[in-house]
């Protein structure tokens, strides 16, 4: 079976490279080029999926070394359970997205260079899967940077739009700065390990001095945190994700930022072997902040993709919550509970990959059909695009963590692990922090439910608000298949979450030494071990069946009791006038109560301008402008950038053009050197 793994790995990566290059070479034949790229990508992703599942289920790790080296470090790939899980997640989402892309990219033919898109797309997936599998820090870094750069190029694919260029720049710079921290961590590890191979890192990771471990932890937290888009390092994310073509956004949000989580888990659990409790607490605090602020900011967006991007910030926070809880619990000796927390975190990784990928694909479909991303210009799409609407709804319900969909399962696990933190009998601080973070999570998911009521309701329900929305047509079949695959997974994993828990069993076994499967119940129910002896359980299988039954009973009872029930169709009651789309509640209006409630966070500014024909009764024109203060940009990023520019311009005076000044520099250098360095 080992050979099979190798075939799958080489097949997957090779096909991606080949497909990308072929697509680039054939760029003049746009259609062919497109088909080649995405066909290759989907087949390759199947291979990746096979590899991941094979490692997870059959337990054969992949270890291979290529016959040359990179910066004097051997090129090795190792796929253990952790890597396999992330490869599975990536390949799964990329597979669906690749199928979707065949239809989506058709609209680019003739307008954009499809060959370049195909090349970058394939390279992107190539880098993601490669970096997860990489067995040495150099290789990891190489592919990590490749991934960043390729995704940057994808972000600026529509580069004629100046906002896109701006977004791309922010993205590439921030991600590069993040990478710098990762490099520093790698280099520090190298000092102790003497090599760049992860195997070497693991050997020394646990025995390093505590101070060094702390530094490395902070470095990776910042470095990977930037990529994950956690607050306050998130500012690039809501700019970059919307700017890219939607299929790419789906991969960026669904898969790429998960690589950061992968890196964090790998570093914290595998290499450093956990650390003092404050590591976990830090992640808990950051996670809560990201989750809350992410969802709050998302509510203020009218651009559907920006909305989704902020939601990614939120979900990254949720993932970190689970991870932080796992770290603290493991530290305090509750390994089984730590396994639950880690499971929650990784389950959410998978879930978020699925539904966020789906949501971006949905947003892409809507954009494809209506030509806009502004939700205020949509409406009534459910009747025009029933499939897209259904898929979007499924994803919305899932991401709002409502039962019986998959999002609920992972949030339920997260809640349980946070409560376990409260009951784990550490100190008062931890005991309060756990449930408090739980309350924060509750707020987050309730807000996210509000956000998705808004997103789905404004986009898909009621009357269309623009001609684009009015004339929207259902998207081509390939796009529907791509979305359908992901959409089917949402209820499936919500009903039988044990599939995933079983898949993850070897992962927790490797990371914490706990076999999750027996700890966490069986196909029928999930159960949480607790110190008191009572088992807390959730039957994910039962809930949907009961729901279905209850719904059916209610329907039947209502249908056959009472003699009413005939249906008449008429216009919506609108106080006697005809309903026009302009009277509908808009997305901005929908968010208004929340904007008011959380005004201390949003710091909203509004401006109403009224022009009168006859004051004060006859208004000629009224305009309203409202915006919220981008706090992080204003407080953190803009001053720093400005400082750099100002200082740079100050220093540039040194090169004033005067040759005398230049000679003076030499003169001064020489004299100084003579005096001091003799």
């Amino acid at each position, binding site marked *: 079976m080992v050979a099979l793994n190798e075939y799958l790995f080489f097949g997957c990566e090779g096909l991606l490279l080949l497909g990308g290059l072929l697509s680039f070479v054939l760029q003049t034949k746009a259609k062919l080029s497109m088909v080649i790229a995405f066909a290759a990508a989907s087949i390759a992703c199947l291979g990746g999926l096979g590899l991941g599942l094979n490692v997870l289920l059959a337990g054969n790790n992949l270890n291979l070394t290529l016959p040359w080296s990179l910066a004097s470090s051997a090129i090795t790939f190792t796929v253990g359970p952790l890597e396999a899980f992330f490869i599975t997640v990536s390949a799964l989402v990329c597979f669906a997205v690749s199928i979707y892309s065949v239809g989506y990219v058709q609209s680019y033919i003739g307008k954009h260079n499809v060959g370049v898109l195909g090349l970058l797309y394939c390279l992107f997936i190539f880098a993601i899967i490669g970096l997860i599998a990489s067995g040495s820090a150099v290789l990891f870094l190489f592919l990590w940077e490749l991934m960043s750069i390729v995704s940057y190029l994808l972000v600026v694919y529509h580069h004629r739009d100046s906002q896109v260029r701006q977004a791309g720049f922010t993205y590439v710079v921030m991600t590069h700065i993040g990478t710098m921290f990762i490099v520093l961590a790698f280099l520090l590890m190298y000092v102790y390990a003497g090599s760049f191979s992860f195997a070497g890192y693991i050997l020394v990771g646990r025995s390093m001095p505590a101070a060094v471990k702390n530094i490395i932890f902070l470095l990776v937290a910042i470095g990977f945190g930037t990529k994950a888009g956690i607050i306050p390092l998130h500012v690039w994310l809501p700019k970059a994700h919307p700017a890219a073509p939607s299929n790419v956004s789906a991969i960026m949000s669904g898969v790429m930022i998960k690589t950061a989580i992968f890196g964090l888990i790998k570093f914290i659990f595998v290499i450093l072997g956990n650390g003092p409790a404050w590591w976990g607490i830090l992640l808990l605090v950051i996670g809560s902040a990201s989750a809350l602020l992410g969802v709050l900011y998302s509510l203020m967006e009218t651009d559907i993709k920006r909305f989704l991007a902020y939601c990614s910030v939120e979900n990254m926070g949720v993932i970190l919550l689970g991870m932080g809880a796992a770290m603290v619990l493991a530290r305090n000796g509750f390994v089984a509970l730590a396994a639950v927390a880690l499971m929650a975190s990784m389950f959410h990784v998978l879930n978020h990959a699925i539904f966020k990928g789906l949501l971006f694909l949905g947003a892409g479909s809507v954009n494809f059909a209506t030509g806009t991303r502004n939700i205020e210009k949509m409406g009534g799409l459910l009747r025009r695009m029933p499939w897209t609407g259904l898929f979007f709804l499924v994803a919305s319900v899932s991401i*709002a963590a409502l039962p019986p969909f998959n999002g*609920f399962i992972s949030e339920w696990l997260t809640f349980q692990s946070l409560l376990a933190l409260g009951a784990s009998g550490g100190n008062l601080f931890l*005991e309060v922090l756990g449930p*408090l973070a739980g*309350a924060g999570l509750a707020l987050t998911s309730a807000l996210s439910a509000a956000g998705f009521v808004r997103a789905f309701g404004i986009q898909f329900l009621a009357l269309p608000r623009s001609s684009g929305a009015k004339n929207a047509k259902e998207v081509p079949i390939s796009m529907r298949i791509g979305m359908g695959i992901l959409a089917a997974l949402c209820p499936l994993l919500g009903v039988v979450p044990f599939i995933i828990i079983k898949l993850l069993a070897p992962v927790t076994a490797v990371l914490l030494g706990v076999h999750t499967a027996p700890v966490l119940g069986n196909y029928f*129910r999930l159960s949480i071990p607790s110190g008191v002896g009572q088992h807390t*359980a959730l039957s994910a299988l039962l809930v949907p069946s009961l729901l279905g039954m209850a719904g059916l009973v209610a329907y039947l009872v209502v249908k056959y009791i009472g003699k009413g029930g005939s249906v008449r169709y008429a216009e*919506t009651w*609108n106080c006697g006038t005809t309903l026009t789309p302009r009277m509908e509640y808009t997305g901005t209006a929908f968010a208004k109560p929340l904007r008011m409630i959380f005004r201390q966070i949003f710091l909203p500014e509004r401006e109403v301008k009224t022009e009168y024909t006859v004051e004060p009764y006859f208004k000629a024109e009224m305009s309203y402008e409202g915006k919220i203060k981008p706090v992080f940009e204003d407080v953190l990023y803009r001053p720093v950038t400005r400082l750099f520019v100002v200082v740079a311009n100050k220093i540039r005076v040194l090169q004033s053009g005067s040759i005398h000044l230049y000679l003076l520099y030499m003169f001064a250098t020489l004299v100084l050197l003579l005096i001091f360095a003799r």
Partner: protein
Amino acid sequence: MIRVLLINFVQAALLVVIAPLVAGIIKKTKARLQMRRGPSFFQPYLDLYKYGQKESVVSEHTSWIFKSAPYIYFAALLVAALLVPVISSVGKLNFSGDIILFIYLLALGRFFLALAGLDAGSAFGGMASSREMAIAAVAEPAALLPLFTLAIATGTTNLTAIVFKNAMSGLVLLKPAYLLSFIALFIVTIAETGRIPVDNPDTHLELTMMHEGMLLEYSGKPLAVLTMGADLKQLLLFTLIANLFFPWGIAIGFGVGQIVVGLVAYLLKVCAIGIIIACIESLFAKMRLFKVPDLLLGSFFLGLLGLIAKFIF
């Protein structure tokens, strides 16, 4: 196993049956406090019957969401009803679910109801949905925090287990942690059930409505389902409070005597809560919408104090 299921179904059925009655009791009490005779206790049943006789008018702008929302809403509440111990706390219903699921089932119902409110395109529905989601968002952490306190105190989030434990330990309410949590949860209940001072359940007038606004487009049988659902939700929350904080008298076995005692105790408790709510409604005026979050924030902090108190005392 079968018996456990059966008990559950019976309890849920009981909840469904008496839910309109509790609503009627509240209405009657309010009327009495306002020196009116008021409708009969059984008026809500008659209303439901009346809705069942009517044809329903559906907006032509709507989609399938509008039509299916009532059933999803009701189903979610019905499943939630299956989770709550009513007259008996026996039977470790491990498989069924816990408080988190309970709260999220309510959220599921709300999600679709809010969508339905948006579906017809009327500004009233949109406004109501918007406010409902906003208030619910603030209410949810305030609801969960006291529940977490209970969960940590008992070591499980399973409702039945919590109630069972509390019932065994006697006068639990006397602990400060429980007292604070109770008050917090009670405030949330007012908000969640759409009662004054948060919402006015008696009016469709634009400036006050939240829950009623979402139902504005409904008529006939779907309206009956939704009204029934709202009543059920109210009763569910009352039951939750009653049995979590005052588990006195709840049946601990399947003995007939126990169950009768449990039933009587339960009815008394629920009626008492209903009357208290009616009193509060009569004593206070409705708050401005944007004062409500302050109230809920207060409740949240009470809950937090309760949590801290749990560890200190």
